[in-house]
């Protein structure tokens, strides 16, 4: 026997005061989160753009990309980013739509291939795709590039495009698109960012409106053992022809061909010293060239191998300066205008 009239009448219900306490407690718990969200929204203007693309350059280029598309799309790593000037191509080729350089500085061939296939080809619908490569781009053992590539392919927007998101990443993307607090949480840890004094993730002045990377325009190549060591321990560390690099380039070419675009592969010139810095010297460079030749032959694309440029046209071992870019762009435009690319 019991005096409780609710006893035996099914599952026990919480008493009203207890239920009220739970509701009040839950509201109190949500209050700081709501206040933080409001605060983050108030600060959003002054916070840097959130890093959802895995590389700061890409969102900047997405903003620059011509809405009407591009007749000539230039892609590659930093060597091509700095080495080919789309505006000059427009002048020389008299294109209808502006050309655009969609290369990725600090990028790898898999990153370049991915952005071209998933972003630039559908968005810009180019009639010509110019792909610039050097031997360094085929090395999978560059520790710095490996880290960059890992970060790139785990970025939310890249995983969304790749269709590799798991459930947690989808939830994360939903929060990112919904909550300013969530989207900017890493910046909200920084007092400098909260004050609005944080530098932008990508300085707009580094990129020309046509997409060309401008950091090397005023550079002048000065050989030094320190520079050689930097390249030896980075881009050319344990140099080898990475099958994933070759595969990435091949899928990029095939995808571009599938859109009906004409594809031009440019074996970009480098300072002559680069050959000696390879672990096996000329043998490495010859192996690289043989691979590029074979790829061009198998996929039936034009291969342009410009002549060796003088050191005065380089900013460092691999990047050309403004004069070098002008000369290289002229050579590529010549090949495009005259169909002079030599099928390997």
């Amino acid at each position, binding site marked *: 026997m019991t005096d409780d009239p609710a006893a035996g009448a099914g599952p026990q219900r919480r008493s009203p005061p207890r239920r009220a306490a739970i509701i009040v407690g*839950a509201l*109190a*718990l949500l209050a700081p989160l709501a206040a933080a969200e409001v605060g983050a929204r108030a600060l959003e203007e002054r916070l840097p753009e959130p890093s959802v693309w895995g590389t700061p350059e890409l969102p900047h280029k997405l903003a620059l990309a011509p809405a009407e598309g591009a007749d000539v799309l230039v892609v590659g790593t930093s060597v091509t980013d700095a080495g080919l000037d789309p505006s000059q191509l427009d002048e020389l080729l008299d294109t209808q739509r502006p050309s655009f350089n969609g290369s990725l500085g600090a990028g790898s061939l898999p990153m370049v291939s991915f952005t071209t296939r998933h972003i630039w080809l559908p968005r810009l619908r180019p009639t010509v795709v110019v792909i610039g490569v050097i031997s360094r781009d085929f090395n999978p053992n560059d520790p710095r590039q490996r880290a960059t590539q890992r970060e790139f392919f785990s970025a939310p927007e890249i995983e969304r495009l790749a269709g590799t998101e798991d459930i*947690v990443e989808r939830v994360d993307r939903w929060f990112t698109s919904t909550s300013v607090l969530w989207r900017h949480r*890493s910046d909200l*840890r920084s007092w400098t960012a909260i004050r609005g004094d944080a530098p932008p993730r990508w300085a707009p002045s580094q990129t020309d409106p046509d997409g060309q990377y401008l950091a090397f325009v005023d550079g002048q190549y000065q050989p030094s053992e320190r520079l050689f060591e930097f390249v030896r321990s980075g881009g050319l560390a344990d140099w080898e022809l990475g099958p994933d690099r070759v595969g990435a380039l091949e899928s990029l070419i095939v995808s571009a061909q599938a859109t009906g675009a004409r594809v031009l592969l440019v074996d970009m010139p480098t300072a002559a010293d680069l050959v000696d810095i390879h672990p096996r010297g000329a043998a490495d460079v010859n192996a690289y060239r043989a691979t590029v030749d074979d790829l061009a032959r198998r996929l039936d694309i034009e291969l342009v191998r410009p002549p060796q440029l003088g050191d005065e046209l380089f900013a460092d071992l691999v990047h050309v300066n403004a004069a070098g870019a002008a000369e290289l762009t002229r050579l590529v435009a010549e090949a495009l205008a005259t169909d002079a690319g030599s099928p390997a």
Partner: protein
Amino acid sequence: MVFNSLEYAAFLPVVVVAYWRLGARARLWILLVASYVFYASWDVRFLSLIVVSTVVDFTVARRLGATDDERLRRALLAVSLAVNLGILGFFKYFGFFVDSAEDLLSGLGLDTTGPTLDIVLPVGISFYTFQTISYTFDVFRRRIGPTDDLLLFGVYVAFFPQLVAGPIERARHLLPQLSELRAPPSRHDLAASLHLILLGLFKKVVIADGLAPHVNDAFASSGTAGWIALLVGAYGFSLQIYGDFSGYTDIARGSARLVGIDLMDNFRQPHLSRNIQEFWRRWHISLSTWLRDYLYVPLGGNRGGRVLTYRNLMITMLLGGLWHGAAWTFVVWGGLHGILLGFNRARGRGVDEAEPLRAAHLPGVLLTWHVVAATFVIFRASSMSEAGDVLGGIVTLRSGDVPADAVAALAVLGGLMVLIDLAQRLTGDELVLLRLPTVPQGLAYGLAATGLVVFSGGTPVPFIYFQF
């Protein structure tokens, strides 16, 4: 699988629910399997080392319990120590001793190249090795009887909440709890467990990981950074390692409580200690009491006069330092604490831990904290020269930029850490938040959740003590 990962957030509820749905024997099996899965998620190969330790100490202890022959008993203890310390020594100290011997010989003008092995340190090896040694030692000293249950002993060695970074449990405390058939946790137990887990996550993800980049920056530029940046790095690391390790312990204790197991305290607000002796009674308690019971006391403790007492203290602290890692920085750190403890003892500065903290204690607390922070610089540094750069830069007031972000992070996150410790110390209750009225309690949890949101994202940072 680290505590601050989604994998663990999925793993723990599965284990807890399965545990309470089963009978006593099956619960032990669940804990053993879960513990081995938890450990294998790092490196399945090293699971064999845990199994070896388990089988050896189980067998040795049973033989110890079955004989009164003192010579045989000593031989059995020696077998256990040889196996456990042999494994620990090989994986943790082989490279250190070879390198040190090479340095010594080359200093004497002898050109020698010793064997070089790229040995990976199995996670948690220092913790479970000490735990299993303590069991055999206690059986040897007849303080406990050996268990006849290999499954029970297997769980004692590998219990997942405390397997990789402690607390280093004692058989007397843990084995009876594991063998008991317990009732499911009450609402209060559940709240206390979840509170400990949340508190631990807050200390780790918000405080420790929030300070980590600024500490890393300061130590990475130890030769050039200004004194303010270095001071922030030194203070920051002292708080970072405390937040990291005590956060781990809180999560471990909260997780264990969910399956009805009460793990020992490992920290009791050590940065509010009034002298160095009190600090060691409040910092990494399971290690300091282990060193006391299984090293300092067997060496003679303070029973052999003043000189022997200081000698024993010094040996204990040097080995305690070396326990942390195979590097001279840890040895020096331990040695310095040995000197400080000796100095404290010589001045007769004991401490009554039960005495409430008062404003008059502030100078002692501040002095102790600064001394501890200075020694932690050596602990954190990759070399003595880096430690010298950091401490030298501070002492000489080296000029340099003031890192505004680091100063702000130290002020906010350090302030939160002090606030948590003060609240616990002044109330004598680590669950003080649970006693608050509904609204303040909800606001406090909401602030903690906001902190976790702001500092979440990215790859989970491993706990510092996993490397030991």
